């Protein structure tokens, strides 16, 4: 699978939990994922800037991993042939319609695997609870 950087456009210093959420979603499809938090840049001993982050993400992703990061702007770096960069507004990830379209695009481009499950593993747990409440399953 070709490497992919998903860059989520957020305000400076925004909550990064959306990165983990998206990462989990790709992981349960069987994709190899690295969620690249801003903190990682500092832990690597670099100054937190979007350029450093983008370069680090590109290096990781060129090994066929989906890398998810966020920042105000994705600096233009040369991604090379082994890599794609897709940019999405954070607000679009919170809206079901625009998020679905984004994910489907990635799927059709062969950048993330299509879901292997019929029911999302996280949702499966909620459904089991509901089936117990309705009396279909013993607690």
């Amino acid at each position: 699978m070709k490497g992919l950087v998903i860059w989520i456009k957020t305000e400076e210093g925004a909550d990064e939990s959306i990165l983990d959420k998206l990462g989990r979603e790709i992981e349960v499809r069987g994709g190899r994922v690295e969620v690249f938090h801003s903190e990682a840049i500092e832990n690597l001993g670099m100054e937190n800037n979007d350029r450093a982050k983008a370069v680090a993400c590109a290096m990781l992703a060129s090994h066929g991993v989906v890398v998810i990061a966020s920042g105000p702007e994705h600096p233009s770096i040369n991604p090379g042939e082994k890599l794609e960069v897709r940019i999405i507004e954070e607000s679009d990830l919170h809206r079901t319609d625009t998020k679905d379209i984004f994910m489907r695009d990635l799927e059709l481009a062969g950048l993330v695997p299509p879901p292997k499950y019929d029911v999302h593993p996280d949702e499966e747990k909620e459904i089991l609870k509901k089936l117990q409440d309705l009396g279909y399953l013993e607690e």
Partner: protein
Amino acid sequence: MLVPPHGGRLIDRQYEGSEAEEIINQVRDGKLLTLNPREKNDLEMIGNGAMSPLEGFMSRADYEMVIDLMHLVAGPVWSLPVVFSQKDGDPDVSPGDHVGLKDIEGTIWGDMRIEDVFNADLMAEAEKTLGTIDDSHPGVMYLKLLSGKYIGGKIRSIRRREIESFQNYRLDPKETRVLFRARGWKTAVAFQTRNPIHRAHEYIQKCAMEIVDGLLLHPLIGETQQGDIPAEVRMRCYEEILKDYYPNTRVAMSVFPAAMRYAGPKEAIFHALLRKNYGCSHFIVGRDHAGVGNFYGTYDAQMIFDKFDPDELGIVPLKFEHAFFCSKCGGMATPKTCAHDSQHHVFLSGKKVRAMLKEGILPPPEFTRPEIAEILMEAARNGDN
């Protein structure tokens, strides 16, 4: 592993809570199109994945491919059109529009991003899908009331649990799939019904249960024609019989919110594919499945399955004959298993049973279990059937 959904992925375009609010807010002040009862059923079943791989109402290319060749453009088998028709008084729309979908009372049930608006020859559709253009066919009558203009596009549907009928029995495909897995079922057989349960149905279900892990009782509760026994009565019959006559870990009952199309053989395929999405590996097809009047041959709905490669259907039809009690056999049987003359068979037509129940006469216990007959008789007294 359960059977994979039709087309490979289980569609989930159903939203509730804050996500549903988001949809309503997006479309409320824009163009709203009106759903008729069948379209409302279809919207629900596209949204919850029962109609996977459909993601919306059909555009012209899929519509034509389906009525002519029983396949979707993308490849999978599909036997009946799932379309949305333009209504009198609704605003004009064109591709690219994002519209809300409301029922006749004005409640919003979803949205559609319009991809196609096209004219259809409805009588050609009737001929190809129903096999007739005769007015006495309810499916033809339905088509005659439509405008002839269809609107296609991807939908999202809204779940409003609080106002649904049969709340305790409404399982979506993803829910039946989780249920089957939790019970350890790898194979399951679906029984579609729009009738109350008589001994003949029980016998057929139990024959099927002998070869699979579980039974999904799936009574249809969408729109049916006048004269069919109301869904409430049918459900009461099933609740009663499940108490004493079925092992409860081997059976699941849930409602099937589809409208009847009375398309006979093509609807049998349609019903089977939808049950595959619910996780069923097998589907019971009786004589004259989804038929009406004398429009279809007795075995048409069974024979149509032979036109397809089993792999492209992905669900196995179990073809059954009418069953009856045979006094010589001393048990339930069918023409396939009983060697005796019909004078030994206890068999009553639906019409005959109805007349008996109206007059307060209990059908013989070999035909209907007394617990069920009581429920039907009470319903007949109250004018429910």
